[in-house]
């Protein structure tokens, strides 16, 4: 089946395991975002060498929507940590709440990579961002309260360190 034939279907009607990597690549970079998310995931499940380049293409061109981009950063993080960390460092200060939530989930899941540099700087940036979303914040449903609470539980010791050094500097 060619791309147009596949795009006639809905995501759940496609057997991604039977598709070639070339077709998966085209679908992952296509406009049908449910199918793109599944095709990118199939490339990642296969440990395909092109998974990282497709993920990077999605992130560097802000292709698709924030759901596809969140999946792409997870895929990139798995195979090219340095590039993913660079992207995260750029995004965290200004990204939208949904992406911040996805980044926090990624950090929690891979805690050991974010306890020390270069990941630690990203963790600090997230902690700074979280100040925007205090208990009275009513903007969006993200960051999700459970994710925020889990993140702060994992990295609370950094927050105390942050406050202590700020206090020290002020003194």
């Amino acid at each position: 089946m060619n791309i147009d034939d596949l795009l006639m279907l809905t995501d759940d009607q496609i057997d991604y395991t039977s598709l070639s990597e070339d077709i998966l690549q085209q679908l992952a970079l296509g406009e049908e975002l449910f199918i793109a998310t599944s095709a990118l995931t199939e490339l990642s499940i296969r440990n395909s060498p092109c998974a990282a380049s497709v993920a990077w293409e999605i992130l560097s061109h802000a292709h698709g929507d924030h759901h596809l981009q969140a999946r792409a950063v997870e895929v990139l993080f798995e195979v090219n940590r340095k590039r993913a960390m660079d992207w995260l460092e750029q995004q965290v200060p200004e990204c939208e709440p949904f992406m911040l939530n996805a980044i926090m989930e990624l950090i929690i899941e891979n805690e050991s990579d974010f306890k020390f540099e270069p990941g630690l700087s990203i963790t600090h940036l997230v902690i700074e961002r979280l100040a925007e979303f205090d208990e009275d914040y009513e903007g969006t449903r993200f960051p999700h309260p459970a994710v925020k609470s889990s993140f702060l539980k994992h990295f609370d010791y950094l927050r105390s360190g942050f406050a202590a050094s700020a206090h020290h500097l002020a003194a």
Partner: protein
Amino acid sequence: MEAKTNPTELGKKLRFQGSEIVDVQAPNGKTIACAKQGSVLVPIDKVAIYAMGKVKKYPEDELRRLQELKQKNRKSFDANPENKRRLKEIMKLKYNDERSQEMLESIKKIGIADSVDGISPIIAHLLSVGEEVDVQSPVRHPGKLEGPLGNLKVLSTWTVLPDGMRYLSSMNFIPQKEENE
């Protein structure tokens, strides 16, 4: 392609709007129910499933269990490659489910309901966009879906079938705040 009599409420509504429901045979043998008007086809499931928050739910408990195992006992998580594969599979389901829920929220915000009454105006809108489309490449075609409480920007892409019909291949909603940026 053969027009079929559809006893459902959706079929009645579509006929009332001047369109009908037909079965289209996909190249993989699957039968796809589409709304048809002139030379435009809109696959009903792309609206009734994606836009109505009906994408398959992800198993939250299994996701939490796998994430905890990965965080707390990485060696044990890595020892079974199935854990890694399954975690990726569930994350895919999660993002697709969340996208579908977000689409539903967008249409509810403009006053369209999660029902047949909601599906039919979206399909009618897409059928009218399809009529305007000059399909040479999968360019995104903008449209404005009007609801009782506001409007929603809809980007659609279309392909031409061998018989010349224009077929909706993708549909994305642009939430108001993104549109304003």
